[in-house]
């Protein structure tokens, strides 16, 4: 038996806000990888550790979790640090704007002390 739920105006506002928030959390970090591929990686989280920022991303091809340090250079497997892509350069996220991107797109940030 189906249950009918009546939503109040406030419920609808909350629901719409939730949907907008979820939709906005879809930032994809764009990088030129190994010199001749442009790839878009969904961002899982950012980790600030001293002066370095580690970005945890998902490989769009395999779904495996990868990590890149300071938005450039080798992209490695998160668990093993084995190199997946020998070189990268991210064009829409950098050491200058990562904080703003994280807050705008609701990306979790972990600070390691």
């Amino acid at each position, binding site marked *: 038996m189906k249950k009918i739920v009546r939503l109040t105006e406030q419920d609808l506002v909350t629901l719409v806000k939730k949907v907008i928030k979820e939709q906005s959390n879809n930032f994809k970090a764009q990088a*030129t*990888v*190994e*010199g*001749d*591929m*442009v*790839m878009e990686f969904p961002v899982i989280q950012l980790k600030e550790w001293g002066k370095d920022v580690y970005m945890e991303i*998902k*490989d*769009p*091809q*395999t*779904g*495996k979790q990868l990590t890149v340090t300071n*938005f*450039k250079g080798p992209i490695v497997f998160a668990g093993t640090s084995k190199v997946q892509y*020998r070189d990268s*350069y991210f*064009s829409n996220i*950098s050491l200058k704007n990562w904080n703003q991107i994280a807050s705008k797109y609701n990306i979790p940030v972990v600070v390691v002390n």
Partner: protein
Amino acid sequence: MKNIIIPLFFALTSIQSTKSIKIVHIQPLGSVNNNTIQVIKKSVESFYGFKCEIRKEIPLTEDILASSKIRYEANKILSKYKSSENILLITEKDIAYHDKKRNVKEWGIIGLGYRPGTVCVVSTYRIERNVSNQRFTDRLRKVSLHEIGHNLGLDHCDKDPKCMMNDAKGTVREIDQEKIYLCPNCKKLIGIK
């Protein structure tokens, strides 16, 4: 179980089957020799089995120039012509990759393509210098098919040194080592025999 299903889902969805592409539009950027265009057309049609349509030449504009103003920036070209249609942009001008962070202002390249995606760009500038027409044609075929391979979702291949999906590592010489051939693993990934 979830850990198995999610990567499998990504692997299945992000590699495009060659059957899903019917037409590749060849778009000359600036003046391009007709022979060059015909070589690409024949290669793409015979290798991948796609139909190619040649578009009318469009001019290279200032907004896609690199900072030196003597080369064109490949990333800007891809962004400008990003499309839902499959497009191979071809130019005789030099194209570069801009990397401020590694203090490399402009790194001249031969091709760049979305992976996976629908658009790629190939420049003949660095593959035709000081070589015979035969070698140039051979390189042109390999680079064009390589970039379309990236559009189809193929990564650089390290399983077979002759596979044309090998990483050129910034040198033209690497391309000369390859064959117009995909290794069984790459073929399997995009569903061609």
